[in-house]
């Protein structure tokens, strides 16, 4: 009886473990199946590099280049915010903060991570955008710049906590050795600790990037939504995620518009997939490196 029970548990947990694999495969199959028909109507090159996104007109235009650029710009802008903030606070937390400061700051960073993205979006739309609009005298605060700012703040906790983990994996002996040969604290930090945790910090940045590029609600609310190739960072933009979210509800099922949204999702998936693989490769290298010397 006990053995049967044990076997049953084993089965249940095996099934649970494999279920995420099934979901992943299912999603990939659906993305390919629903996304591919668009390439029968539009050439892949015209789809990726077309400059106009008028999916509901007659004849429709399915050029997602403005959407790709929008995602790219907003993600880049978010990185400029979240890398200094995230890595900087990780360094402070790990290297300089006293135990008491740490016990307050670390949970704060984690709370920042648990705020739902719609709240960030609301905050961006109601506060950040109007303030920037008045401050910078731009026609509208709903633009790539505001979206980058809000996304950057959102991605900061991700970057901070992974970078902090990476720093804490650096063996104490590294620091001790550095101090022993007469290096000061700054030299130890820049010449020993950061290089040793370098790949872990890179992983943190890449995961922050994949968080920013895939974020939907915030950009839908803050980026403005114009499908136009941005000329400046203060232009409103329409990242890929917000185009999907805004249009999927009303695109007739099975229409070219519907398939084109799946094709956008497919491209987005491939981008984040590449980011995650890069992060995985780098973090593996990191483990081996520390394993050898630590």
């Amino acid at each position, binding site marked *: 009886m006990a053995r049967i029970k044990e076997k049953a548990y084993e089965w249940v947990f095996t099934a649970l473990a494999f279920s995420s694999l099934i979901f992943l495969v299912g999603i990939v199959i659906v993305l390919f199946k629903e996304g591919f028909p668009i390439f029968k109507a539009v050439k892949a090159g015209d789809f990726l590099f077309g400059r106009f996104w008028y999916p509901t007109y007659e004849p429709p235009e399915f050029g997602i280049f403005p959407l790709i650029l929008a995602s790219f710009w907003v993600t880049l802008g978010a990185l400029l915010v979240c890398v200094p903030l995230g890595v900087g606070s990780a360094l402070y937390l790990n290297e300089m903060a006293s135990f008491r400061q740490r016990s307050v700051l670390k949970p704060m960073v984690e709370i920042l991570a648990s705020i739902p993205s719609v709240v960030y979006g609301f905050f961006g739309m109601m506060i950040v955008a109007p303030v920037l609009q008045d401050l910078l005298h731009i*026609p509208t605060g709903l633009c790539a710049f505001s979206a980058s700012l809000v996304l950057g703040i959102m991605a900061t906790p991700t970057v901070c906590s992974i970078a902090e983990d990476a720093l804490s994996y650096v063996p104490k002996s590294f620091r001790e050795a550095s101090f022993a040969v007469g290096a000061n604290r700054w030299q130890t930090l820049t010449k020993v600790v950061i290089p040793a945790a370098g790949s872990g910090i890179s992983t943190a940045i890449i995961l922050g990037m994949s968080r920013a590029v895939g974020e939907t609600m915030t950009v839908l609310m803050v980026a403005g939504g*114009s*499908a*136009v190739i941005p000329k400046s960072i203060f232009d409103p933009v329409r990242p890929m995620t917000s185009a999907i979210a*805004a249009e999927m*509800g*009303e695109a007739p099922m099975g229409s070219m*518009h519907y398939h084109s949204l799946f094709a956008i999702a497919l491209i987005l998936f491939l981008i984040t997939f590449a980011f995650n693989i890069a992060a995985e490769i780098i973090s593996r290298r990191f483990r081996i490196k520390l394993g050898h010397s630590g």
Partner: protein
Amino acid sequence: MKKLRLLRAAVSAAACLLVAAGTVSAAEKVVLEGSTTVLPIAQKTAEVFMDKNSDIDISVRGGGSGVGIASLLDGSCDIADSSRAMKDTEYEKAAAKKKDPKPCVVAMDGIAIVVNNSNNIAALTKKQVKDIYTGAISDWSAVGGPAGKIVVVSRDSSSGTYEAFGELVLKGAKVRPDALMQASNQAIASIVAKTPSGIGYVGLGYITDSVKALEIDGVMPDKGTVLSGKYPVSRPLFMYTNGSPKGAVKKYIDFVTGPEGQRIVDEEGFVALK
């Protein structure tokens, strides 16, 4: 062994479901097809109607006004939803097919053009609104306002409001690509409320104190001017039937035009007839 038994149970359960689905009682069927603008009204009224009349089965399809009218003339639907009156060519086709389409107005659709409260402009012509949205005019000074770039706010291209605005004002021309495309009427209203140089369009129900609705061609948008058709950015929404409605079709149309149906019309953001 255990797994096999489980599998068998699952298969037989699925089989039962299939059989059950196949033997649903033969209710009287009414098919609606046509305009995506009328679709939310049709869907919601059909749902509520079927809850009360389990013997009538209504199926609702989109496709567009033209498609709906063509299906009605072919006999493949019972009611054609349309956001425009039938064209003469369609009436000719109907006569050739010995069909007698009868219109029934089920709701009015009106769209207000709104600007920021600080804007000194109180009225525009339909032509000016069109030029602003297509990009021919991009500065407020061109329409008598203070100099400043106009921030154009529009609904997403797949929304019904966008479609109606496109037909009534733009006449099929494309919205300038740098317009801010928003996912809801509410988003447009709040952006215009916060953007001094903004212009947007919303359903009548979304006009509040925080934005200023403009007079278009000299007429203020409100329920009265939309109902009378005086306000230029408005239109009736139709359901066409073949001959005067009878039986289940009549029961449904009476429901839509009755108090309960009109309450749904109002809830969906259109102007009810009474």
